[in-house]
């Protein structure tokens, strides 16, 4: 076990995924990480999308981590930190009626 340097890991949860309706990313387990960060890159976006961090004790049942909502309505990159989570993380995305976007979603863990 290396104690001299922190561990970090980046997972690409969605890769050029076209979304037209609400969705949640696949459960991702980060039991070792003390902190995490989501990045959402909208390669294309026409209409509003809102993202919230959700956490789970078992990968099956989910609740919001906090009240924060992260919005994007044009191409670009947004990010937000995550701390105080349990083992599983995911992003829930609400897509406004008629909106469409092409997304890459990254999750970075650091221990």
């Amino acid at each position: 076990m290396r104690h001299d340097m922190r561990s970090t890991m980046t997972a690409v949860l969605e890769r050029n995924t076209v979304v037209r309706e609400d969705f949640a990313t696949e459960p991702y387990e980060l039991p070792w990480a003390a902190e995490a960060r989501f990045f959402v890159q909208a390669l294309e976006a026409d209409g509003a999308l809102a993202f919230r961090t959700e956490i789970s004790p078992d990968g099956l049942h989910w609740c919001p981590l906090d009240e924060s909502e992260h919005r994007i309505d044009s191409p670009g990159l947004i990010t937000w930190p995550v701390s105080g989570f349990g083992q599983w993380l995911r992003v829930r995305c609400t897509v406004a009626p008629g909106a469409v976007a092409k997304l890459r979603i990254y999750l970075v863990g650091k221990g």
Partner: protein
Amino acid sequence: MAKYNPLSRVLCFDTFDTTTHGWTELLGNYDGSGNLDTVDDHMRDFRPPQLSSCSFFDVGTHGTMSGDYALKLATRPYPGHTATGIRRLTMAGRGRVRIETHFAFKAEATVGHEAPSSVGWDGNRHPSESQFGAFTVATDICSDGGLRYHNVIRYQNTNLDGEMTNRWMYPVVPEPTPRDHVEGRFALPYAADFTAPDPADWRTFDEPLELCVNEVPTKINWHYLRWDIDTSTRSNVELQLNDRVMDMRDVPVPPYPDRYGTLDNLLNFYFSVRTHCGIRNFLFLDSVLISVEW
């Protein structure tokens, strides 16, 4: 390392208490502008590996054979979906190559409702037993002037109809590549079997073999697997699963008919897990050891 039986030179001993050790998601190839829309549909969503403490809804943290974390490959809950972890090496010689692991496999627990299953619950057997599709261990090797081939073994737990089969299988065709697609030979849909898409191209070997499922989807028991191949003869040699040793010398390894450039001395290994129903399937690797005789 005493739980393994390596050959004379150890290339990798990967225990997942310290990072993913180079086991990463497999992704198909893309064009020169970094446009990921050009990745083949069947090779764009193999899911990133996770470091898992093997925690479950009923007992909490299970832990692994060696410590805190295992490498977990997890499919989407989508029929045919495959998750992969690939390790990329090259060869400094030719000869016997051995990959060993202690692994566990499971379908995701179904809580609060029943999911389709060909196995009923009787207090011993559990429906989740038939909700696990298959796991595969395979290589991608290229040598000797661009000659490329894959040694492949697959444990098929159920067929595509969800019926228990418990068979070891191998493909009789090489894996479709992005170049095959560019040259018009294949255009495979999302969740196609990327190793060999036509079920008719798979053959069984050895006898049906029942692994340790242990009655519910959240008890994981570590199985020992050892697989020997020979890169000097481009052949399979032997497979061991717990106490069963299977001779693989007659299991063919079909090469690509065309030569491949930029892959000199390629020595890749991958593990994959494929669900045959709409339930996530998991493959947990406690640790992996790759050793060679060169």
